[in-house]
């Protein structure tokens, strides 16, 4: 997994509430057995017209926000289906971090497992940030994970909180399965005792 440390880029606003994973990655892109080609499916019904042409009204199609690296999103982003395809697609599209107030639980975990940083800000700070990056002249920001800071173009800085465990995993690009397997003896020990106490679960 690609480590996340200091990342610079444009941020695009997608501030509607409850943007769900069906909208982020529609059903017709879920039929693969690998993770390839999902960038094309991201926000497909909003990004493309029925003719197949890019929808000029969609923010990520507008020249000032094309190739954005960050999304500033509305509450409950990523709700609905557990499909990790939504995160794979966003990542393939070049999105490295999402900034919002609240995120759906499964989506949040999926981002973490894929090295996509989720930053949660209080509502006021988020609305302010949303305004700043909605202006094409100030939509370039820097995220410094080590320092837990978002730096705006005018050099003002917003601090964010993040669990130490998540921060370390992102900074180091850790393989979660590999890390857990280092505790195999502990798991085996737990399992042995647990199944002995609850024999109907064997």
């Amino acid at each position, binding site marked *: 997994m690609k480590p996340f440390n200091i990342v610079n880029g444009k941020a695009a606003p997608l501030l*509607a509430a409850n943007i769900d994973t069906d909208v982020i990655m529609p059903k017709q892109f879920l*039929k693969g057995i690998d993770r390839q080609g999902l960038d094309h499916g991201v926000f497909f019904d909003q990004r493309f017209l029925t003719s197949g042409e890019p929808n000029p009204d969609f923010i990520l199609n507008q020249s000032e926000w094309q190739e954005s690296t960050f999304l500033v999103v509305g509450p409950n982003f990523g709700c609905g289906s*557990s499909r990790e395809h939504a995160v794979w697609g966003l990542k393939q599209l070049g999105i490295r971090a999402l900034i919002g107030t609240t995120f759906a639980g499964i989506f949040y975990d999926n981002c973490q*497992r894929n090295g996509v940083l989720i930053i949660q800000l209080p509502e006021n700070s988020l609305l302010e940030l949303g305004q700043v990056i909605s202006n094409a002249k100030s939509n370039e920001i820097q995220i410094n994970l080590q320092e837990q800071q978002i730096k705006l173009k005018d050099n003002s800085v917003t601090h964010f909180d993040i669990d*130490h*465990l998540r921060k370390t995993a992102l900074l180091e690009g850790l393989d979660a*399965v590999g890390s857990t397997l280092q505790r195999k003896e*502990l798991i085996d020990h737990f399992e042995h005792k647990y199944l002995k106490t609850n024999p109907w679960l064997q």
Partner: protein
Amino acid sequence: MTSAKTLYDKHIDSHTVCKLDDDGHVLLYIDRQVLNEYTSPQAFSGLREAGRQVKRPKTHLAVVDHVNPTASLRTAEMPDEGGAQQVSYLGENCQDFGIELFDILDQRQGIEHVVAPEQGFIFPGMVVAAGDSHTTTYGALGAFGFGIGTSEIEHLLATQTLVYKRLKSMRVTVDGILGTAVTSKDLIMALIHKIGASGATGFAIEFCGSTICNLSVEARMTICNMAVEAGARGAYMAPDDKVFEYLKEKPRSPKGEHWKQAVKKWRTLRSDDDAKFDEEVKIDASCIQPMVTWGTSPDQALPIQSTIPNPELITDPHVRNDTYRAIEYMGLKVGQQLTEIPISHAFIGSCTNSRIEDLREVADVVRNRHVASNVQAIIVPGSTEVRNQAESEGLADIFKKAGFEWRQSGCSMCLAMNDDVLQPGDRCASSTNRNFEGRQGAGARTHLMSPGMVAAAAISGHLMDIRKIGQEV
């Protein structure tokens, strides 16, 4: 010092292998996982690439449900290449890693969250995770279930654990008697409307109260299933005699001495009397009316006798904008009566409402009646066993006579990953769980409601109050 615990605390404590930090992260042992063909492929590929094994193959059960057609005549063929590849790869993975699979022609096939309880694969006290958000369903059995993504499926297959952060706790107490034709679907829709689509984000919900106790186990499953639409990462109820009775004769339930030991343990699974919850919500069941959604989020729901809300009257600018957008997408007018909304399709199915009790409820509405001429109505039973039972009870004949298509089992038009896809502008009364934009097909419009309400809409051709059926002039 003794501290009172919620049942959620007890579930997590009894499954904690070790603490990982002081922020609430633990390594959580998982008892069971259900796998499907569409969220598991990349997890198995991950294992293969790293040369890893499945730690306890017997604790996983795989089912084909999301991509298969539901045409009345069942064949093993998948009509599209992608679906065929997913089904065949699931077969290959189950074979290679020693996991049991209910393939498409298996008599036990069906929607994962219908099949797992039906087969007695889930018991009280278990912690269950699966690559589908509606894994919360198992809370109705006194287990704790939650949805995970594909990376987590891989983690679980390889380690039998997940890195887990403890949630906050919410107790939803429901007392009072549900009115005539008001169901557990209406109850959970009313809760989602009350607390919002993210009202329980970051929480595990415990449902309790006399109303919950009086519900059947299947009706309780509908509630836990849809709790995720309020953002809950898990929802559960303390198991009682109804649950033990439900499980007793199931194929995989503990038998003999193990059954006795298990029930003794299961009877202890409840929150301590003085346990503290981070949030408390109370609902008076007697006030709940039959509910329908009018918008594109499950919390955009109202009692059937209501009208489409006026965004101008909403003070929060974001909610106002979302309301405008939903009304526009849904092709509705401010002030329009919900009962005046005509439908083109009626769908009865999904892990929320496709069990035998749901089908009996539908049969009671459509017996000796006929689907409106402009409506295509389909019934997709939750499992092949449910289908067989409905046939043996004579329900299937009632459905067919009333003009419903009687299908084979699968997720079908709930998320339209198979060939049951609506066209732009189609409007569907649906017993499912999500009314998102494009959920049942790009540009299609979904109204969520109970199976009985879908049946009533199918008969009348428009959304209607189930309590008025038979009273129409």
